[in-house]
């Protein structure tokens, strides 16, 4: 099966390998037609299909069987067929359904962005900004949980969790001896460790990076600063455990946070170890490569020295 299959997404044709998902095919095209994904993570096996933000309409199943699929499908878990025609932003039905999903995700999510460490690099913020409504119709109390420390470096703020299961997959696949998972059912389900067991593993810090919201945060960075006041810089070091390729977040001269490098979809390029993440907070520990490329639309770029656009020149005479 080396033949390429042809798929049309929002009237753009692309040829991809068989077995590619619709979402990945869309990412190959790029641009606005890429469905948002809150739970899918290309580096984690079995992830996806849960958040339902990537729903798309398949208006033609394949060249052989041109019937449309009866329901909207999760593009992250549906593989393409030859001759498949997919509608994402060209389908009002999809846009409406996505609005609904965003509303559902937000009804139990606290509006504490002003004090949340994830603000500025939060996928849910981006998602609700792009696809959500400006108002919530939910008028009831939100579910609340106590904050928990899982391990001495990670804080779990369950109120903010959208149950994407990414951290569970990370803990399962990247670390050995997984101790944390989902407890409970329905909207009472929570991420947790069995009887508050601490997570003690060299790669456990990656759950912070995969978390799309501020549910899992770095205790060494909590309340230190807003991300848009910090400057991300790519750096590397020789590490025995991991690749050592990281992003350093500078505030002035000080490294206040170390994270893995993320691609344009917010996914880690490589998982890094806890020593790199939590313990090496001096510039002398690292070899600096250069400024991290930040999407111009991201709020992080507002303080970024490299890609910043020049302010428009205003002709004062017209006033």
């Amino acid at each position, binding site marked *: 099966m080396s033949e390429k299959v042809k798929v049309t997404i929002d009237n753009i044709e692309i040829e991809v390998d068989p077995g590619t998902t619709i979402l990945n095919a869309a990412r190959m095209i790029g641009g606005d037609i890429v469905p948002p994904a809150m739970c899918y993570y290309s580096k984690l096996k079995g992830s996806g299909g849960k958040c*339902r933000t990537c729903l798309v309409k398949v208006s033609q199943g394949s060249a052989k069987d041109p019937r449309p699929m009866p329901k909207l499908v999760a593009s992250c878990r549906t593989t393409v067929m030859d001759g498949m025609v997919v509608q994402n932003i060209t389908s009002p039905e999809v846009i409406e359904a996505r609005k609904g999903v965003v509303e*559902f995700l937000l009804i139990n999510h606290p509006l504490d962005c002003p004090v949340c460490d994830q603000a500025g690099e939060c996928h849910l913020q981006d998602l609700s900004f792009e696809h959500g409504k400006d108002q919530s119709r939910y008028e009831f109390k939100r579910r609340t949980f106590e904050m928990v420390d899982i391990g001495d470096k990670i804080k779990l703020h369950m109120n903010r969790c959208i*149950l994407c299961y990414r951290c569970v997959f990370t803990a399962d696949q990247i670390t050995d001896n997984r101790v944390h998972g989902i407890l*409970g059912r329905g909207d009472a389900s929570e991420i947790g460790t069995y009887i508050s067991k601490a997570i003690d593993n060299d790669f456990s810090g990656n759950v912070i990076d995969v978390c799309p919201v501020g549910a899992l945060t770095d205790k060494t960075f909590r309340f230190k600063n807003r991300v848009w006041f910090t400057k991300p810089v790519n750096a590397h070091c020789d590490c025995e455990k991991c690749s050592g390729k990281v992003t350093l977040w500078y505030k002035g001269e000080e490294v206040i946070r170390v994270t893995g490098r993320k691609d344009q979809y917010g996914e880690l390029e490589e998982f890094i170890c806890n020593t790199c993440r939590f313990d090496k907070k001096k510039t002398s520990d690292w070899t600096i490569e250069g400024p991290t490329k930040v999407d111009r639309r991201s709020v992080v770029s507002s303080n970024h020295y490299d890609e910043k656009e020049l302010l428009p020149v205003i002709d004062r005479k017209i006033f």
Partner: protein
Amino acid sequence: MAQKILLKNINVPGINTFEVYRQYGGYAAVEKALKTMSADDVVEEVKKSGLRGRGGAGFPTGMKWSFLAKPEGVPRYLVCNADESEPGTFKDRYLMTHTPHTLIEGMIVSSFALGANTSYIYVRGEMMPQIRILEKAIAEAKNAGFLGKNILGTGYDLEIYVQPGGGAYICGEETALLESLEGKRGNPRIKPPFPAIAGLYGCPTVVNNVESIAAVSWIVNNGGDEYAKIGIGRSTGTKLISASGNINKPGVYEIELGLSVEEFIYSDEYCGGIANGKRLKAVVAGGSSVPILPANLILKLSNGQPRLMSYESLAEGGFATGTMLGSGGFIVMDEDACIVRNTWNFSRFYHHESCGQCSPCREGTGWMEKVLHRIEYGHGKMSDIDLLVDVSKKIEGNTICPLGDAAAWPVASAIRHFRDEFEWHVNNPQAAMDGNYGLANYADPIPVVEEAN
């Protein structure tokens, strides 16, 4: 007197024991199938019978069996879904309690047809007595040589295991059931792959309802064509209906599909009419998840013909004026029943049972429950009614498994058919707390209102 297949000998004393069951012709199907038929013959007979899945979806059983992948060297499994948890449905429990050998016999024949050497009965955790009964029945059958190695000297091996679940509604969904059976958290899997390709432990698996499996032995004994003669159209055979609610004779009834709904409710053979001389208000025809119908629509089709108890007739008119046969949980409500309270109750159930895996169902079911609670307790607003319709539309079809649909349909249909009762609750909060709306005009034909959105 309608023909009885599953409950024919239900009143025979001691039918739950192997000896009595055998005296009344039990296990003949095992002998016939294993000694005189090939596995494909059995599948062919079931296909001919037109037997449809009795768990709710109504998918033809023979077709499901023929989809089963048969790779070499990989075991295949038959899993019996006895995780009966739909509110209003209690037929499988009844069958397992009183004639457990009917199920065991069906399991042996079905496993033989599918080439499975290990089969599981996944029983809901709350049904502890039934688990014991089934285990006793399995031990008896094994003692008599109908289970174990080399059954009846035919060289066919089969072991049946009873596995209690934790009592979650979601584990009645077949992929969640398989996850639970594997010892994992009972979250539904994302399909495809379907269980027929990769099910239990990644092997091809068929998951069937108790009633479907129990019907197989009769089909093998009497032939698929005979079974197809019973019933009407594509709804062949008999169906167990769990009748409950405001009727004179609640209980489990075996009906031939094609019986009219009116006869089922009012005849003395079945429900025996509405209790205390009240009038019929509404019926939930197939377990809590199917759309509720007011009296006028459940008794008559839109063209004036009587509505029948069959897959097609109950679904006539789509979701605008129809419902579904579902799992056969027939809940009858009289004029004293409050539709809003009933809808809230169902909604509360789905909120409690949502697995929490995908966001529309996890968040939406709780939201609907809270809004309905508000309306029921006199704090509702007129906009809440449209909000409920909108939320149910956003859940329906956007979830991994059908639980989202099941949670959305009762709410959407209750508002579709009983919108005036909801409005009365909003407008007269005190009166709604003290009394109820009564029958109003549901006994007479009312124009069906299709909401916006």
